[in-house]
């Protein structure tokens, strides 16, 4: 190859690099090549130091929910054609990816009661941030985002980072006025309560703001009515197909009413036909995106969460109409059972009026301290917030798990 190029060494090809900066030796301070066995041992020993969620009773939710993933999902997403392909720039040889995206978009739109959804966002927090930026584009001149009820702290923090760039701020719903481009409401909210979206809609309409609904447990939409009152619905779909992954990769989704289509961020797949008249799919409405509009793009997003969206689509397809609703019902039933069990524990009060699979309990001790004690018994408690704890269950939570937490709490709160 060197001969064909006409140089004597590879370093000749780096002639544009100032010679004093072209490294001769490998960089100091990093290990050299290691074989597969050694590398496996290193990773296995790192993994062994972590307490996996499945190793004992586990009640953490707070935006990242542990569900059962059917065996088929991981098999399919490890197929080369899904795992190692890229963005479908050449649609003739990417109809597989495009058909998956089309079904993902459809399923998200159906679940959320919206008319159009994109091919995915990084996660629920960033999709909320992007929805606020979109609200500013639609309601130009407005500078604030109002929040009704309890929003996930990470979602708030991430959105805050983006709002600051627009000299915009969050305001509480009590201060909702015409300076607000959107009213944001989480459904169910961070403490598990299920807000009344008709009321939220009326509040938004009173000031001409958009209604943005945030759903961070997608399974809830199998039992709760779709948030059709919204203009935009965003959130987290990783409950299906994806797994916890220490918080990433997750799966953000973005759906809205058709009238806002051209203001949406992200990739969108659409139906069309080829020169032979056969139906097919292509990425479409690209004029919104960074590779076409550059500084005028609706977002800078390029790579999104493709393989996670594929995993979700497979899982949701396996569940189907009945399975999805049944799964949601099972989750809620577990939560109802758990709420009853915990209500009977001396010193514990269930303070959520309504909930799906996550609710809040209150006691006299500091919840973080309680969690420390629970951990000594290999129980991972819920999200600690002062003397409140937000506990989540799913179809994976067993009766023994619930009994274990209840009896330990009773001990600790004595």
């Amino acid at each position, binding site marked *: 190859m060197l001969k064909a190029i006409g140089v004597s060494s590879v370093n000749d090809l780096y002639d544009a690099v100032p010679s004093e900066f072209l490294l001769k030796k490998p960089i100091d301070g990093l290990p050299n090549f290691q074989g597969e066995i050694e590398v496996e041992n290193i990773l296995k020993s790192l993994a062994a*130091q972590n307490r996996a969620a499945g190793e004992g009773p586990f009640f953490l939710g707070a935006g990242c929910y542990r569900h059962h993933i059917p065996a088929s999902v991981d098999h399919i997403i490890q197929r080369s054609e899904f795992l190692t392909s890229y963005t479908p720039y050449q649609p003739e040889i990417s109809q597989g990816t495009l058909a998956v995206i089309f079904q993902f978009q*459809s399923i998200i739109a159906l679940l959320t009661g919206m008319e159009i959804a994109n091919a995915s966002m990084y996660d629920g927090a960033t999709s909320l941030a992007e929805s606020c930026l979109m609200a500013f584009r639609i309601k130009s001149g407005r500078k604030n985002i109002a929040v009704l009820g309890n929003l996930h702290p990470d979602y708030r923090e991430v959105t805050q980072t983006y709002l600051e760039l627009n000299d915009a701020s969050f305001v509480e719903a009590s201060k909702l006025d015409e300076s607000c481009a959107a009213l944001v409401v989480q459904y169910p909210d961070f403490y598990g309560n299920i807000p009344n979206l008709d009321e939220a809609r009326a509040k938004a309409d009173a000031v001409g703001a958009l209604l943005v609904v945030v759903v961070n447990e997608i399974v809830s939409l199998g039992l709760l009515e779709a948030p059709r009152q919204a203009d935009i619905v965003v959130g987290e779909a990783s409950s299906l197909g994806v797994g916890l992954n220490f918080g990433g990769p997750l799966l953000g989704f973005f759906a809205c009413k058709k009238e806002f289509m051209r203001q949406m961020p992200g990739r969108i797949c659409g139906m069309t036909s080829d020169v032979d008249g056969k139906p097919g799919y292509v990425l479409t409405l690209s004029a919104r995106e960074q590779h076409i509009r550059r500084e005028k793009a609706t977002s800078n997003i390029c790579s999104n969460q493709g393989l996670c969206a594929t995993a979700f689509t497979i899982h949701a397809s396996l569940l189907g*109409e009945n399975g999805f609703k049944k799964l949601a019902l099972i989750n809620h039933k577990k939560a109802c059972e758990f709420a009853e069990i915990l209500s009977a524990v001396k010193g514990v009060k269930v303070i959520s009026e309504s909930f799906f699979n996550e609710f809040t309990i209150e006691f006299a001790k500091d919840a973080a301290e309680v969690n420390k004690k629970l951990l000594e018994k290999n129980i991972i408690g819920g999200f600690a917030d002062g003397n409140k704890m937000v506990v989540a269950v799913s179809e994976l939570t067993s009766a023994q798990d619930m009994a274990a937490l209840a009896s330990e709490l009773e001990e600790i709160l004595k």
Partner: protein
Amino acid sequence: MTFTPKEVGLKLETEILIKQTRKGACGVDLPDVADFKLRIGQKKREAIGLAEVNEPQVIRHFVRLSNQNYSIDAGFYPLGSCTMKHNPRLNEKMARLPGLSDIHPMQDQSTVQGALELMYNLQNWLSTLTGLGGASLAPAAGAQGELAGMLVIRKALQAKGENRKIVLIPDSAHGTNPATAAICGFNIKVIPSDSEGLVNLDLFKKLVAEHGRDIAAIMITNPNTCGKFEKNIVEIARLIHEVGGYFYCDGANYNAIVGKVRPADIGVDVMHFNLHKTFSTPHGGGGPGSGPIAVRQDLVEFLPAPHVKKEGDKYVLHAPKQTVGKVKGFNGQFGMHVRALTYMLSHGADGLQKVAEDAVLSANYVLAKLKDHYHVPFSGNCMHECLLTDKIQKAQGISTLDMAKALVEYGMHPMTIFFPLVVQGAMLIEPTETETKETVDNFIDTMIYIAKQVAAGEGDRFHQYPLSTPRRRLDEIKAAKTPVTTWFAS
């Protein structure tokens, strides 16, 4: 009506699952639920509108869909700027260890010390490779890395009481650069490229003279999107630093110089990485990626949260003192951190140096073999990708698009087309280091064949290509004019 089977061989079609619905079918065995009193505070949902299919139907559908997809596992994928190198399967095995996949981001830090140590090690690899002071793994993809990096620069300036508004960006930049700068509220001044495909040094100096201390930063990709190492980079960095601006380096093309050049040495202050490019994490049909950033020591306190630090023998997730905040929920794309670190450990510092050398060698080999058949806009050797245009073939009415579709017909994914925008009809070819010489030769032979066909007046048929793929050319205008984005849209 008589039934006649279609002659398809292995070209199996499949309808989307909603069209295969069989009432009552379900692909997951779930126990029945006896009635109980709901506590959702509203009426329960009646219908969603999903398909009803069983597990064999689902698997068959997705298997058939996968057969309509090209992938790097299947063949050559020289997509310039994307670094479609082989995705080692060890990465996948490690990412699936329950201790790494079945952990929740909000677990007590004492229960995830292995995960935090992994992140700390990856931060360390990135800062050591680059010679920069520290790194954050928070950003979810390259574009988010750019955002985080520019936020760090913005905050660093604000901390000095400076409210600089200008960012200089070469006209050859990837679209995410200006999109990101705009989101951060900067005004963009475009630096034209010169006849060598590099930043025009004279015009750059003019911009610096004109805007001086209004310049927050320059956003440069190096090697650049024309496949060239910016030979004046040290001077460019010096001039920006002289007026108190920062040098942001888009690290999408890092594969050419990893282990060969330390970005800190050439003046980089802030840089993002694409773990799904340089560090082999799979592209997944459009993500997930991961876009960590590394920054100079004095900028470490501004890094996005969360960041992993070491306190004694404990690893701690924390928010740096003057952090720009969170750009993404939770901890970043941890699953991709696992895969990237596995790759780095497998190669080692010596192996990574060889990766860059092989990538550069391969691209120059392609350039040397094709330069007599295609227009090469910028002379001299290239880095890990080479840039050609359709100037010669355009004279016969054959464009980059037609030649790309011809490559598709001949069993390969085409190169990146129509990017960068600084040349007409761009073809950006990045073979990567994981291809055999035989595969690269096959690509070269095919490209020469195409060029010769066009030269002989036989190129018109490429307007109709591809012919043998699951679908032929698709009507993108129709798709945009009347968008149909769901199966239930009327």
